[in-house]
């Protein structure tokens, strides 16, 4: 029964991991930029949900409607204003630049909200579902459902919409896409905006479950990295598979090795995958 309960928790956690990673994966895949700000975007999204609930009484799932456009605009603006200037530069430059931006954003949050942990407590609480000895709090189920819905929505946008097809085209072959009349800088900005919107929404959902603090941004970023590598870069199904895989390995790993080793375990897994299966579980080799 313990095994089943852990598996159930891992699936809930894995869906959230997928939502954390999918925007990061999109930006990495399309722009070839590692967005070090991703973790801080997530935390900022959590603060948005916390503030909206505390001050205005807006439920977190309603806050998603605010978070998505707000973060899209932030991301679009950052890409247009700052990142586009160095988009063709070597890895070191783009990585260090987003790192610098992250230092600014994270420091601003520390000053604004302090490092104290905040908790969004729903009142009245949603209670929990139980079947036999299995117990799942309903707020977790809500977070899981919404994160899967958001991931699905991004998948459909990329698959079905005109702008989504343009994003995928740029990812596959930037030069050919440009020759077909795609405005590449604007696609970059849109992709970055979508990535930021996914991060903000993931933050809103995480606020329902985890305590909120700017210090947490690094660990969210780390999860996004690992999930991307495990699942395969730049694909939405890859992020879902990678997220679930990571959550399952982490949950059972901490059962066997103790919870203090779970970071070591997930980074160990990262390095093994980077070396033996760099294309990830679902990715195709050479699709870059």
């Amino acid at each position, binding site marked *: 029964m313990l095994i089943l309960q852990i598996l159930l928790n891992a699936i809930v956690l894995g869906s959230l991991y997928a939502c954390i990673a999918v925007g990061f994966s999109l930006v990495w895949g399309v722009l070839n930029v590692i967005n070090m700000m991703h973790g801080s975007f997530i935390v900022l999204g959590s603060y948005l949900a916390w503030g909206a609930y505390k001050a205005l009484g807006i439920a977190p799932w309603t806050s998603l409607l605010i978070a998505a456009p707000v973060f899209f605009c932030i991301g679009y603006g950052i890409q247009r204003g700052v990142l586009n200037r160095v988009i063709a530069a070597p*890895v070191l430059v783009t*990585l260090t630049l987003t790192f*610098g*931006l992250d230092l*600014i954003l994270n420091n601003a949050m520390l000053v604004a909200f302090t490092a104290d942990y905040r908790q969004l407590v729903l009142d009245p609480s949603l209670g929990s579902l139980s079947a036999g000895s299995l117990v799942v709090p309903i707020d977790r189920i809500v977070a899981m459902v919404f994160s899967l819905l958001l991931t699905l929505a991004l998948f459909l946008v990329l698959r079905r919409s005109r702008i989504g097809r343009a994003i995928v085209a740029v990812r596959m072959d930037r030069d050919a896409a440009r020759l077909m009349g795609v405005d590449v800088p604007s696609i970059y900005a849109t992709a970055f905006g979508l990535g930021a919107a996914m991060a903000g929404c993931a933050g809103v959902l995480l606020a329902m479950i985890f305590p909120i603090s700017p210090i947490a941004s690094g660990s969210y970023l780390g999860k996004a990295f690992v999930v991307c590598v495990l699942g395969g870069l730049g694909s939405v199904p890859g992020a879902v598979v990678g997220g679930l895989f990571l959550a399952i390995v982490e949950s059972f790993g901490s059962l066997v090795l103790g919870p203090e080793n779970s*970071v070591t375990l997930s980074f160990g897994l990262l*390095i093994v995958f980077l070396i033996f299966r760099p294309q990830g579980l679902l990715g195709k080799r050479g699709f870059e």
Partner: protein
Amino acid sequence: MKQRIYYGALVLLVLFGCLPFLDSSYALRIGTFACMYAIMSVSWTVIGGFTGYPSFATGAFFGLGAYCGGVLINKGWSLFAAAGAAGAIAFAGAIALGLVLLRLRGHYFAIASLAVAEVLRELANTATNLTGGGMGLNIPMSVKGSSSVMGEASFFFWAMWTLLLLTFIVVRLIQESKLGFGLICIKQNESAADMIGVNATIYKSLAFAFSGVFVSMAGALYAAWVHYIEPPDVFDILFAIKPIVMALLGGLGSPAGALLGAFAFLGIEEAVWRNYLQIHSGVLGLMVVVLLLFLPEGMMSISKRLSQLGGRRG
């Protein structure tokens, strides 16, 4: 031109060694930090500047050295033996790790090197018997014969300064040698370098090891200097990012540039940041962004740009 900058930096460095004669403990402290940061940025130049691999492992080497040094001094080793051992462990570890990690390129290598510090920090946190875990590790006084505070401070300044001098000369020798030439070939085109007979795997691993060995020794000196280390302190991610910023500030790929960049960086840090403790990392971030957007080739390019500007006007 290149030779002139190198000798200029060397002369400056030797002059810097006279700092203890100022008899100011503040200057000594800043000077020791300046040497420590310069060791990091000059070392990073080998892997990041010559070879073109964006390594974020500097912090990992530093923490590894600090813990090796701290643990060995606690076991009764002398400071220099402990620092030497820390260097040797880092060198061997970097060779072994390099053979694995350096098969990755670009973003993948950057992330994997970043992960090394995370893993080492967790290990230091959990191996409580050896490292004291999250409570940190106390390191006894390791300098004999200098009972005065100033005496100890001068001692550590000179130790760090000597190590910097050694680092600078070794890195310069690497740049001039066949190894350095091979590394620059790898930066330009790794597959082609492999084709014409540069053993890329071994060269890259050596570069990675040389980027770690002196940093690790500096970590051991640091541990003995401050007498107390803890995992989040010595495996700080800023130790990975600051050397890169310094090297970029000075101009990528030149040891003299990295040295001057480190000194300039520390100068700015002292002049600006001690007034704004609350927004310390935010100001660093702002500096990174401004530097990368407006001065991507570092301070070295200022004179060139000015002359271009003058040429255009005239």
